């Protein structure tokens, strides 16, 4: 897999220009293996756009992305996901009319290699139920396995999304505001879950809740208007006068 501490993800001069509006401008991001890395910054700073660029949902205007030392700047989104860099979405992304179990199972079924087999019965997927329930157990959703996802409360949907993402056993997990819209109880649960799953992988997360960031993350990158304003551990970043200035007047 590679040693803890080496770079798992690196961007060089990553830039996205939306018809003249530079949403991300020359970002050099370095994410080290085995860490929980936070990407913070005021609304509109370009955090989600960075995620979209990293996962190839949009093409950069310039710059390069290296994942595990390989240039993936021109890769396709599904390829990036298959190589172990998996994202979640800022707005809850479940499969609304599938059951909780089916949501997780969709993620689990790809490694079976039968996902194009339209002639095979879906009974062949039943072998995945054990693993699916384990994943649901982690987010306390096992008892809701047959609930249609659309009927879950918002915080529970986000938990389901996290379980679905974890089903892929990603090497690098990109979480876009995983605790946003969650009740207090869910936040605590998700923080513990992230801490737990981060034991075997790298996490890059966008997070507005600074106490969560302080609690979880070793490295923090502060983004403002598409460029990196500051970077370092929480104690250093949180006392940086430029960061304070950027955050004052932008209550989150």
């Amino acid at each position: 897999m590679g040693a803890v501490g080496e770079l798992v993800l690196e961007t060089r001069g990553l830039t996205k220009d939306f018809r003249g509006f530079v949403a991300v401008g020359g970002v050099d991001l370095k994410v080290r293996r085995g860490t929980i890395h936070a990407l913070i910054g005021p609304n509109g700073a370009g955090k989600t756009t960075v995620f979209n660029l990293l996962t190839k949902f949009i093409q950069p205007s310039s710059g390069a992305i290296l994942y595990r030392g390989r240039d993936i700047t021109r890769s396709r989104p599904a390829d990036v996901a298959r190589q172990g860099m998996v994202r979640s979405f800022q707005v809850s992304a479940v499969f609304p009319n599938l059951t909780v179990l089916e949501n997780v199972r969709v993620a689990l079924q790809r490694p079976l290699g039968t996902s194009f087999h339209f002639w095979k019965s879906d009974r062949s997927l039943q072998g995945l139920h054990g693993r699916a329930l384990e994943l649901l157990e982690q987010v306390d959703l096992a008892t809701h396995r047959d609930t249609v996802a659309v009927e879950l409360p918002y915080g529970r949907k986000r938990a389901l999304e996290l379980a679905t993402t974890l089903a892929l056993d990603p090497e690098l997990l990109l979480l876009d505001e995983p605790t946003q819209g969650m009740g207090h109880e869910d936040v605590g649960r998700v923080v513990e879950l992230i801490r737990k799953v981060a034991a075997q992988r790298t996490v890059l997360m966008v997070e507005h809740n600074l106490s969560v960031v302080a609690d979880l993350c070793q490295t923090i990158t502060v983004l403002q208007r598409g460029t990196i304003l500051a970077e370092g551990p929480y104690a250093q970043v949180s006392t940086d006068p430029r960061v304070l200035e950027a955050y004052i007047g932008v209550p989150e």
Partner: protein
Amino acid sequence: MSVPGIQESRTAWRLGIITPGRKRAFFIAMGLLGLALPLAVYPVFLMNVLCMALFASAFNLLLGYTGLLSFGHAAFLGSAGYVTGHVLKAWGWPPEAGLLAGTLVATLLGLVIGGLAIRRSGIYFAMITLGFAQMLYFLAVQLPFTGGEDGLQGIPRGTLFGLVPLDRPLTLYYVVYAIFLLGFFVIYRTIHSPFGHVLRSIRENEPRALSLGYDVDRYKLVAFVISAGLSGLAGSTKALVLQFATLTDSHWHKSGEVVLMTLLGGMGTVMGPSVGALVVVTMDNYLSGVGDWVTVIIGSVFVVGVLAFRRGFVGEALHLARNFPF
């Protein structure tokens, strides 16, 4: 963002009075009904219904289970009819080869049209499929072998596998019924396959499916090709039944009609499109005496049907059964 009309699922959630045993019993009863029906009802009418039911079911694989609205499906129905008609009439091929040829051509057309359209979504996808269908319609009008405005008339039915002469309506009916069941089974199996589950995830949330590592365009393309091929099978069979292939089946009216049948019966349900086809073909058939008013009547039925039964006839019935007792 719940989509009305999409409720089909194989897992245990909310089955209400629908038990697996009852479901099986229902399918067996329907199967037997299909065997007995031609003894009571005019077989050519029934065969027409079966062809349209297969067409709509194939269309529903895209609309109901993949979330793709094609507005050019007449292209597959129509061109397969012409191909089958031509090889049977001009080249004297046996019926099984004729059906195969039509289906194959529609499948290849699906690959080409799908390959070019699949990257677009929503209304753009609908418009590109319509555009291709219009081009094919133009070809159907211009090419010599289609017979232009008159169409291909007097297509011989021949002898199936050199053994079964298809001139008796009842014999033909059972052959058509077997073709329908085969096509229906392929669709049913596709829906309830590992592939079908990926399709459903794409329908439900395409970016999410992509982020899980599914090349969504490839899955959509395979679904499109299967749908086109089976629509072709429906068109080929129809040409064999009616012994003619005309411009009607390539016209964009047919592309609209199949949307109508699917919505009316219930998109995203296994049986819905067949029920919708039955309703529309019946109206077409028995109201043909009313002349131009038939479109107005069908239009009104559609409007009232969709307003009163948002999930379609079958969708509403399933909804009631799942929430039983009310």
